């Protein structure tokens, strides 16, 4: 027991003196992902909000053919502008989101009571413009509706005649759930953070030690190799866990700066979220540390170990991708699968969906069992004769 602590303390002390490792654990791991995430989400949300509130610039060709329509659009917040000379090209080259074209035949058709056509020129592949297009379409349709209603009333009929079916939308997603959809990637960032935080130590304590030729003298000490391994895993796990705690903190702070409220969302990132997330992540962090150490034990050099671990980094993204591409209904067995269980738990906690304590326990116990299994495999590799031989 004392030997485990000795190895643990030495690894922690030695790695705290490595500036690159410390930066990875304390800064890059926890901060990079949340920062990128917040910047992107913030940019997307603010742009959408901006567009919804701002007056919509509408370049119009032939405004003089439909003064009433133009007036109605202005009242709804459109800003009528002169159209560019070549509207099709202007839209294609993104000089304008859209152009409204009112043909000369409009006034004639209107007077006769026939459908009067206007043309909306836009580029469907330009996703940025789709909000503006939808807004203008809505304005045009509401003008059409109003005119139709007035015409029907003028002929002495009830305007309800024109609406045989009425659709009322009742969105069942809660505000938290809408927020959760945007944050489906969040669990992956936590797992990735833990992975990055432990990576340097997993390599340094095994492949690095062998490359420096210090593993053989270490094994000449009267300490069972399993205890040496436990001390090293403990140090790797601590660094990874530190990264995780910091990234949860960073996200909690970052969430304050997201204008989620304006979109009618709320995220449940508080002490309860942090605590339960740490509980379900703890065995996973140990599992990842063991996996990293196992992979590093097979590598002949530091560089080779880095290659293995970089490949291993893609494993945790698989459940995240599956969950965001195919939004499964959450089922109990999912909690029992490491990575998936954490993904489900964290996502549901954040959305404010109920997670039973039995489900948390299931996730914890199942991941712990797998972690112990991976540890035993790693310990077996550690006992092999070849591990210590450097050359």
């Amino acid at each position, binding site marked *: 027991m004392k*030997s485990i602590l000795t190895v643990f303390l030495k690894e922690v002390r030695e790695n705290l003196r490595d500036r690159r490792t410390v930066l990875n654990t304390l800064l890059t791991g926890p901060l990079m992902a949340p920062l990128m995430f917040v910047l992107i989400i913030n940019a997307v949300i603010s742009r959408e909000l901006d567009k919804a509130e701002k007056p919509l610039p509408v370049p119009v060709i032939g405004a003089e053919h439909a003064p009433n329509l133009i007036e109605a659009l202005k009242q709804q917040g459109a800003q009528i502008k002169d159209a560019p000379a070549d509207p099709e090209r202007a839209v294609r080259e993104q000089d304008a989101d859209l152009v409204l074209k009112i043909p000369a035949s409009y006034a004639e058709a209107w007077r006769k009571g026939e459908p009067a056509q206007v043309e909306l020129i836009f580029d469907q592949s330009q996703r940025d413009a789709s909000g503006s297009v939808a807004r203008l379409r809505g304005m045009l349709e509401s003008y059409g509706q109003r005119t139709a209603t007035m015409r029907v009333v003028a002929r002495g009929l009830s305007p309800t005649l024109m609406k045989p079916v009425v659709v009322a939308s009742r969105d069942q997603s809660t505000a938290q759930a809408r927020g959760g959809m945007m944050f489906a990637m969040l669990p992956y960032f936590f797992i990735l953070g833990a992975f990055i935080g432990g990576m340097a130590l997993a390599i340094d304590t095994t492949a690095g030690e062998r490359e*420096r030729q*210090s*593993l053989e003298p270490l094994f000449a000490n009267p300490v069972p190799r399993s205890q040496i391994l436990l001390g090293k895993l403990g140090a790797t796990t601590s660094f990874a866990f530190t990264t995780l705690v910091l990234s949860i903190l960073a996200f909690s702070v970052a969430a304050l700066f997201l204008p989620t409220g304006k979109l009618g969302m709320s995220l449940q990132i508080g002490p309860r979220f942090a605590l339960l997330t740490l509980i379900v992540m703890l065995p996973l962090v140990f599992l990842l540390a063991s996996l990293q150490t196992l992979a590093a034990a097979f590598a002949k050099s530091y560089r080779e170990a880095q290659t293995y671990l970089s490949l291993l980094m893609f494993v945790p993204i698989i459940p995240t991708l599956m969950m965001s591409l195919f939004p499964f209904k959450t089922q109990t067995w999912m909690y029992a699968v490491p990575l998936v269980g954490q993904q489900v738990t964290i996502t549901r906690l954040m959305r404010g969906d109920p997670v039973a304590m039995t489900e948390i326990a299931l996730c914890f116990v199942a991941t712990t069992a797998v972690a112990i299994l991976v540890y035993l495999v790693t310990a077996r590799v550690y006992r092999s004769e070849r591990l210590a031989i*450097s050359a």
Partner: protein
Amino acid sequence: MIELKDLHKAFGAVKAVDGVSFTARDGEITGLLGPNGAGKTTTLRMLYTLMKPDSGQVLVDGIDAAADPAAVRRRLGVLPDARGLYKRLTSRENIDYFGRLHGMDEAAIAERREALIKALEMADIADRRTEGFSQGQRVKTAIARALIHDPKNCILDEPTNGLDVMATRAMRDFLRHLRDEGRCVLFSSHIMQEVGALCDRIVVIARGRVVADASPEALRAQAGTHNLEDAFVKVIGSAEGLAA
């Protein structure tokens, strides 16, 4: 005291060690001489329980290494062929780490560490991080850390490898010093002159077998020559892989 009895170890088809037996006694320096690739390092690795012999027995102070490897390691101070240090730790911290792994208390570690630093004349580097150490400074640190627990038996694999003339002389003095303290000193070398100058007993290994095991005088008599180096070449059958 170290006793090796008929050790065998093969890596695939290659018989690295093919029946090695010898005894290294307390208060003597035993030299393991052999050309590069003769099986010296593999023999020593089996002795300090890093490898398991395919057959044969290792006894250290009468304890069977197969039965109680931890007890054997406690009685050995080992300077392996691989002598990497932790470069972000100082010399002292490197030494202390091994002391703690031997389960020593801090007072005992401090006392023994300072004695070794004095004996190895390394006070000037003791508080420097080992990154950028010269070969000699590295070996001194590695020896101090190997002997921190005051072991009765000292095993050194090519201890003078890569050392300059002054450092080599100091190393030889240090080995004699260990012997005079009554320890069992076993070291390997491929340098004939070094073994001749230092050893009370010489074990010559070639192709995984012991080809001679005697005192320097007896070895000279055995080969019928006054020159020890000629005697070595004669018992091995070739000078390849040796150094004068």
